[in-house]
């Protein structure tokens, strides 16, 4: 009796650690929850998540933040005295570098990252999965799979993926993804 009670608690807590309750009225929250579980589902077909895209964006972004920090540092060091040509030169340099990098960050977001939520590798194959919503009122999850150039688009209603309580049904979600990826791999 005690053993089964322990396992029941362990199972329930394990499920809770995996998924959280989501507001069923917010398409954005539903999409975010699905995005978070893409890597878990796709690891079942052997795709290990690659973080190079995320890391590059983090490096560019934090470089901008560091430059802003440097602007603040020189302001304190030179007491914000614009009569000092050294201070003016450093501030101009950091401001220009900041906006150049912020523009690069924006271009990277728009043209390289786009709406890619998962990048994974299996051997020599690279799988990229993007997700988006058509509108906030439309509770449909649109997915685009790109396996080494072969593109496949899928869509699924959130009502099929979430329980009435607001939890993601991970079994249904991962089965859907596994089926799609197996189908694409066969087509190549």
């Amino acid at each position, binding site marked *: 009796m005690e053993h089964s009670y322990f396992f029941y608690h362990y199972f329930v807590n394990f499920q809770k650690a995996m998924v959280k309750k989501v507001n069923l009225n*917010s398409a*954005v929250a539903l999409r975010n929850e699905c995005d978070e579980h893409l890597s878990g589902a796709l690891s079942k077909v052997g795709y290990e998540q690659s973080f190079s895209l995320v890391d590059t964006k*983090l490096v560019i*972004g934090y470089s901008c933040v560091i430059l*802003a*920090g440097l602007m603040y540092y020189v302001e304190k060091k030179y007491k914000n005295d614009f009569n000092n040509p050294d201070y*003016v030169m450093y501030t101009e340099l950091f*401001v220009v570098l900041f906006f150049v990098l912020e523009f690069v960050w924006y271009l990277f977001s728009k043209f390289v990252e786009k709406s890619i939520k998962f990048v994974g590798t299996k051997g020599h194959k690279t799988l990229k999965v993007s997700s988006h919503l058509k509108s906030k009122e439309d509770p449909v999850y649109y997915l685009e799979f790109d396996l080494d150039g072969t593109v496949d688009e899928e869509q699924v209603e959130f009502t099929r993926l979430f329980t009435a309580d607001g939890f993601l049904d991970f079994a249904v979600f991962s089965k859907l993804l596994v089926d799609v990826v197996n189908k694409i791999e066969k087509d190549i």
Partner: protein
Amino acid sequence: MNLKTLRIQLNQGLVMSMVLASAFAVWKLMSVITMSNSPLVVVLSGSMEPAFQRGDILLLWNREKYLNVGDIIVYKTSVRDVPIVHRIVREHVIEDDLPKRKTGKNKSTVAAKRKSQKILTKGDNNQGDDLPLYEYNVNYLDRQKDILGSVKGYIPKVGYVTILITENKYFKYAIVGLLALSALFNQE
């Protein structure tokens, strides 16, 4: 904490940091363009009424070498560390000594001269000029050292929020509370 969770938290931190860093960088960009260490100031007193009211935001420009009688300028003195917005009523240019520096093989000291403009100001709505506001034994403001810039434009009333924040402590907590609430409700 695994690497994926770390990346998610770094990303969230980056979004917030970029907002702050961008705001600061825009402020520094304006400073560099106007060559003023404070390109926007809020009118704090009624000494320039009816031209400017308390709470108006002033846009400054500090690239002019010499200013004219009648220009509205913003200055700060070490006596009171708040920006004062008044009109130039008198000005003249004198030759000052620059700090002495050693030159050439003979190592003789040469006192270089520079021209500097001295300025007397008065608030339109004040009875007398600003002499009592200046430092002890100082009869004029120095254009290079004391002037933040001349007023080139203004936005009425918008800056009253900053006056309320500094003068009314309940307003400060209300603003912080509103910001926290809006961050909570913003999922995307």
